[in-house]
């Protein structure tokens, strides 16, 4: 087996609080995510999943507490982390074509040979034939494919996905599950928020449920894992 071209990264959240005005979105969340783990976050609407992922992406600064990253090997210095992030919104420009969007972000990230990388990703997400179409002419599912391609452009060691199957048809969900399986098996750390059991949820090696901004369940075992996703124990 060939070693990964990147150092697997772990994340450590220490007593994270996030307040918006007087309302707590997250309250004293402490979690350690090991390098290469695939963690599924479940929880009702407003439970804090999105805020948690945005803090992990370093888009939102916590009101209190600390987020740190660590390498699998303690001797290695942790590089600057640039996570691949798929959010609720597509995070791509409607007025640009699929290819222009991906080229824009790959050039900003300094991806070597951006044209080749973009062509390969467009092929992978099944949008090669529509590469020159404006994103605003795409269906929601096609936009989501562009969003996923954008997040994977720089082959990130940490992948964060907020309900990544939104808008995808069954074939799209299968494609995403297969892609995530490959990424997980290559040692990437994956954090994703999902609703209920699915092909994608079954890839998780750990399930965490948030409620009212706090972690209320955290498991790696089969039966509890399912109950966290389906709320069967609530």
């Amino acid at each position, binding site marked *: 087996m060939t070693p990964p071209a990147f150092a697997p990264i772990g994340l450590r959240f220490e007593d994270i609080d996030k307040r918006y005005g007087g309302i707590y979105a997250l309250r004293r969340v402490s979690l350690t995510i090991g390098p290469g783990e695939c963690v599924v976050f479940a929880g009702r609407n407003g439970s804090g999943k999105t805020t948690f992922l*945005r803090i992990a*992406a370093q*888009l*939102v600064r916590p009101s209190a507490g600390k987020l740190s990253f660590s390498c699998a090997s303690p001797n290695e210095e942790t590089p600057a982390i640039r996570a691949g992030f798929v959010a609720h919104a597509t995070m*791509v420009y409607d007025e640009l074509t699929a290819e222009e969007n991906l080229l824009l972000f790959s*050039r900003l990230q*300094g991806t070597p040979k951006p044209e080749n990388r973009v062509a390969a990703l467009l092929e992978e997400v099944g949008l090669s034939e529509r590469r020159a179409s404006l994103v605003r002419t795409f269906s929601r599912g096609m936009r989501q494919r562009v969003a996923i391609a954008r997040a994977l452009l720089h082959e990130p060691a940490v992948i964060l996905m907020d309900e990544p199957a939104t808008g995808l048809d069954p074939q799209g969900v299968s494609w995403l599950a297969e892609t995530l399986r490959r990424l997980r098996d290559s040692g990437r750390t994956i954090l994703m928020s999902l609703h209920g059991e699915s092909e994608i949820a079954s890839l998780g090696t750990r399930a965490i449920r948030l409620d009212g901004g706090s972690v209320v369940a955290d498991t790696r075992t089969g039966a509890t894992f399912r109950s966290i996703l389906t709320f069967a124990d609530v």
Partner: protein
Amino acid sequence: MSLLSNTAVLLGKELRTEFRSRELLTTTFIFILTIIVLFSFTFDPTSDESRRFAPGLFWLAFLFASSLMLQSCFLREQPNDTLSALRLSVSDPFSIFLAKLAANALFLLLTELLLLPFFTVMYNVPVLPVLHWLALVFFLASLGISIAGTALSAISAQARMRELLLPLLMLPLLTPILVASAEATKALLDRAPYVPWAGMGFLTVFDVVFLTAIWLFGEYLLEE
């Protein structure tokens, strides 16, 4: 180096999207042209009167038009959360500001140059002998309006009453630029034109101070 390359890539994106939609340029151009034409017919000024008040009118029109133009600068990043994608991609958030303010300055400058012939004809003021100095004043003033306006646009885009907030913050802050550029333009359009060093010096200092402030604190303006 990555700051400059990121800025160049983002500037290319700003220009491409604008020239594809022509949304801002068309609105700004028509708004200012309407004001120029309307005031010309209403006051029917003589050449001497034009030299006295037309520069003020010209820059006032640009100030209002720029608040229209700058309003959407960060707002249009919101529907698809593309600002987050940019923040995750660039190595220095200052490049986002730099690209946006450069694009805004270019759009303003382009509008000014396109409207200059109309202004010359409607107000009967010859600009050809001082065109190069006028272009420099336009450049410095457009840059100043864009630098301060882009920063304020980033602030107001995150507020609840954003449409109201930007003009409220921007118009008082840009009044010194308006005064300096109107005075400088007036000096250049005088019957005995002279180079307005004081006005141009003020515009340069304004640009440098505000650009430095954005360089130092701009990152915080982009945070959620």
